[in-house]
């Protein structure tokens, strides 16, 4: 019960008790520093923000060399499966990936390599150039030679995944990226050639923000993908939208590249007999 009371008393006047205690502890030598700290605290408490970490080092005169990071998830697949490449660079003025071309300084792209591939990213900046690589090991599908055009060698599921690829979104956005228009056109063409296939479009979000808002946002992402497919000639009654919000993450780390993988419209074959 005593602990209870003490906690309550401390909680009632947090600011007061901190300032009262800190004054007698201040020595002359630390005074200038304390003044700066307290002044910055006052500013910070005014706008209710956490102080930014203080950096004591002087700015570096020469340009820093670029930092680059490239990951492929998963790193081992069966031919026909998708791999998500995600990359992040800093201090780079131009970034390119061999076989893909010039890309934004950070981003995500779905690829479907048919054989074991090492993706090579080059980040060039004023401070030099940095490379990053990521290797994807591709196992042949069903003991057959990986020839994507040959329907016999891939399951219907694998064919679907190779042709109807997930698309990704910017944070808090449900606008389809122009770079994904071709992905959706390819998906529409495949669906036109396979009229028996019905599709579930899942809307996904990263795990920041509320479950409820992300369900609404995921709905809009899936609907945006649906709208594009309908524009490309797919009958709306073949497309079913389900928002998963942040309830079904593909990746659970608290990193930008992971968040990016979760901001997607994901396509799967609809096996339910419903609409």
């Amino acid at each position, binding site marked *: *019960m*005593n602990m*209870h*009371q003490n*906690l*309550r008393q401390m*909680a*009632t*006047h947090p*600011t*007061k008790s901190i*300032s009262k205690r800190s*004054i007698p502890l*201040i020595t*002359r030598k630390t*005074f*200038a520093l*304390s*003044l700066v700290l*307290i*002044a910055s*605290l*006052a500013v910070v*408490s*005014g706008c*209710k*923000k*956490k102080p930014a970490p203080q950096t004591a080092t002087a700015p570096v005169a020469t340009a820093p060399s670029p930092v680059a990071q490239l990951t492929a998830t998963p790193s081992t697949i069966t031919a026909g499966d998708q791999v998500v490449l995600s990359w992040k660079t800093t201090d780079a003025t131009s970034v390119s990936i061999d076989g893909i071309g010039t890309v934004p300084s950070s981003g995500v792209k779905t690829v479907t390599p048919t054989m074991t591939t090492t993706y090579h990213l080059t980040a060039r900046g004023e401070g030099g150039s940095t490379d990053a690589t990521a290797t994807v090991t591709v196992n042949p599908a069903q003991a057959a030679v990986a020839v994507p055009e040959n329907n016999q060698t891939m399951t219907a599921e694998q064919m679907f995944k190779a042709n109807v690829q997930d698309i990704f979104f*910017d*944070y*808090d956005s449900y606008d389809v990226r122009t770079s994904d228009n071709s992905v959706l056109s390819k998906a529409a063409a495949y669906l036109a050639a396979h009229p028996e296939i019905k599709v579930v479009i899942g809307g996904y979000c990263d*795990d*920041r*923000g*509320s*479950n*409820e*808002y992300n*369900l*609404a*946002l995921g*709905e*809009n992402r899936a*609907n945006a993908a649906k709208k594009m497919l309908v524009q490309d000639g797919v009958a709306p009654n073949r497309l*079913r*939208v*389900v*928002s*998963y919000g942040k*309830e079904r993450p593909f990746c*659970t780390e*608290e990193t*930008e590249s992971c968040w990016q993988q979760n901001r997607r419209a994901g396509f799967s074959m609809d096996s*339910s007999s*419903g609409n």
Partner: protein
Amino acid sequence: MIFDFRFLRRLAWVGAACCALMALPVQAQDWVHIGSNIPVGTQRIRLAAADMKPVGNDPQTPVMKATFDTTLFHDLANAGIFEMVSKSMAPTAMPGSPQEINLAQWAAAPANAAFVAYGALSSTGGHLVVYGWLQDDRNAGTPPILTKQYSGDANDDQARTLAHQFADDIIAALGGGVRGIAETKIYFVSARGGSKQIWAMDYDGENQHQVARAGILSLSPRISPDNSRLAFASLSNSGWAIRMYSFDLGRFVAFPPGTQGGSNLSPAWSADGNHIAFSSSRSGDPEIWTCDTNGGNLKRLTAFRGPDVSPVWNPRTGAQIAWVSGRTGLPQIYIMDTDGGNVQRMTDGGYAISPSWSPNGQFLAFSWNRKYGPGAPGGQDIYVMDIASLRWLQLTHDSGSNDFPSWSPDSRHLVFERSINGHTSIWTMLADGTEQQQLTRTGKDFMPNWSWK
């Protein structure tokens, strides 16, 4: 001594900085304390709760007494209006009736109590009876403020219930007629059983149990004002539907508007229990809809492109709805009339979600990340805003990611969800952000909703 002169000048500066530091939050909190009827510091009533006097030789009596004493003290300490007299400072005698109490002893140091709650407890043949009194220590001779008998079965659950009832009676008598919250429940989502389903617990975290199970997973539980029905959103193979569970009937009851087309999310009850607001994307975009509780009178209130979700009625007037809209980009809190008119944006930026309207109609509590952006750590805090003046106060600081605040019926407390390193728990606090307490500890508990009574 030039050095000392500088020293003094610096001291003055530090003093000024400290004053600025202290003045700002204290001033800012005044409106919260007044609006939520939470007294500060010495304004709190100094109350003593004596241990109950055990009566009779039934072996259950001391067991029931222990539960009752602990629960009563905890309830009164949690009320937010008392400064409780520590049990170590209370007189050693356990008064069991007005004839036995020496009020002067309780009024004197070290107890210094303004009021004392006391009584007698006995368990006889499985039946538990408590006589409770509340008395003004400094006006001996005046009749007790409260004289009441409480009874129930002699089990742990009933002992806690009787203590909650006595506590709420004391709080109503001393807290300006506003009844306490010790008998209220908190509904929430828990994934402790595997998938996310709807659970409930007492307001203090006791008695946690699953109350409904539906679909692949369920979210957003909202209890009806009369505690008879629970509305929530549930994901099945055909998408998101709003389900309605009746506690009276022990089964789901039909709610046709909640199952039609598109995702149906985030239900909310009007205070009269006659209307439901929810988010539905049946038009192709998530919008706010309202209908009668029986499903009739379906109306769409919003029409802008972008997510509209998480509605909540003004419980005082029933004439306004607050909700979250992404119509201008990042989600913000808005208010509108229940016919969709008079739309007013309440937050000025950042990422603002999950509004809860205080039962007295004065405040909105919500979750806000004021510097959301790409690469931002995603920290969210609970804020409370005075609707008339748009003044706001941050209630949580540097403690994980906080979301889904929900007001207690006395407008003095908030329950909320706090996530730290992937472990999400239910917490409560006073409406000024103090006295934060963790209620659940499985690390898999979300989206609390405080009952209306």
